[in-house]
């Protein structure tokens, strides 16, 4: 049997993390292909339902990444995101989801190597954890 390849859905802010991922690509920094990036205009617009839906549809990990607090294009997006994330973390904790599966990071546009490292780290962790407990009924 082939090695388990986790699926990561990353919600990346258009102005920072998405640009970082873009730069990681153009600079040919190697990182695992397990991540599917969803570009959003701001990390503050990521609704809990996006994250839960990702798990519902078979994601093994979800990453929400955007600008550092002071860099936000829309003033207070990261703060909004933090508040949402804090709440959602408590909820998914009740569901019994491992902490490592859901991450919130701040990555600026210039931090391409950090983005690549993060994905590598996440993939390593998720491989150790195995498939998500919500995955069972998803047809592949």
């Amino acid at each position, binding site marked *: 049997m082939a090695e388990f390849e986790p699926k990561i859905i990353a919600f990346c802010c258009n102005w920072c993390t998405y640009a970082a991922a873009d730069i990681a690509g153009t600079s040919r920094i190697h990182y695992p292909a397990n991540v599917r990036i969803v570009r959003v205009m701001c990390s503050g617009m990521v*609704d*809990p*339902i996006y994250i*839960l*839906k990702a*798990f*519902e549809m078979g994601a093994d990990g979800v990453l929400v990444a955007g600008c550092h607090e002071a860099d936000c294009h829309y003033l207070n997006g990261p703060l909004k995101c933090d508040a949402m994330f804090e*709440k959602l973390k*408590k*909820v998914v*904790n*009740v*569901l*019994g989801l491992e902490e490592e599966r859901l991450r919130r990071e701040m990555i600026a546009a210039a931090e391409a190597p950090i983005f690549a490292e993060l994905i590598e780290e996440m993939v390593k962790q998720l491989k150790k954890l195995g498939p998500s*407990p*919500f*995955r*069972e*009924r998803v047809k592949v």
Partner: protein
Amino acid sequence: MNLEDIIKETKTYYCLECGKCTSICPVSRHNSNFSPRLMLERALMGFEDELIHDRELFSCLTCYACSHLCPSDVDYPVFTQKVRNLASSQGEHGDCAHSGTLFSLMRLISRSDIKQKRLDWLDGCRTSQKSEVLYFVGCAPYFEPIFQDIEVSPVSIARNSIKILNALGIEPMVLPNERCCGHDLLWTGDVETFKKLAQLNAQMIKETGAKKIVFSCPEGYRTFKIDYPQYVELDCELMHITELLAQNLSTLSLRAKRSNPEVKKVTYQDPCRLGRHLGIYEPPREIIRAIPGMKLVEMEHSGDESICCGTSAWTNCGSYSKEIRVERLLEARATGAGMLVTACPKCQIHFKCAMVDKGAEKGPDIEMEVMDIVTLVANALGGKSGE
């Protein structure tokens, strides 16, 4: 099930078109686009598409005010439930409050491999591994973080329920991996997931060997009592905690709060699931009357005429729902009571939400303390679970 079967099952063809349903409907009073009578008429005339694709199909509160008054005994809430199932198979959905997060959670809970961590609030409660009585916790552990902003604590209702059971000499079992009862999914048309949840719950309960299940949530109680028998086999006695309490009032020593010696006027909101769905009106009132220092005053609409808290199954909550809530809270305030007691965590959530909503523009006019009857009793027991 097609529309014809639904009409037969709910006796819709008996409809006299008298319009009593629409005249009593709390939604129709505020939202002129919604009319139960019109919905039934559409079904009877064969306008299936108009019925299914009407946005207002999901506005019904399924509070049974209409069927309670219907001279032909048409079961409009069940009609709504089944037509919604039909509609959802054609891709129609109501507007979910909280952007559908709660429904997503319910679907995630239905996956069989999950191991929930839902019991970290049990401190101070005595539970046992083997008992004849099972306490069904319900969604409280999930609601706790979601509704902390509006200062509602559903977990405290669960904790107090167990404390009351302890005071009655019962050490109940609680399921560590209990699933959502599926109430909201059933009433919004997702019968598939509902069935899964029902099967998982029934299987787990059978394995524990429980003979009696106690609920503090009216929705869970209704779902187990009326809906589960249609899908799963479960041979247990079911009971709402207010019923159990009312039977055993003499064994509890209820005290008035020492800090507040004045007699406190309270009023009681009948949750639709407990009241009109299951006919439990008196037990909660007996309990309130039995607490020293409490005086029960009734609202203009109470008992079987009670008005619902404005939203059901987290669907189509909007300005009309807020208006219903504001109206109900004004009614509660008009009684002169200082506290609104209810028996359903969702009533509490919805009323609190209306109070903190700045858009409702009623501010201090509708502000009042809202408390679950279980918490009220637990407070009267005093700190040490009444021993």
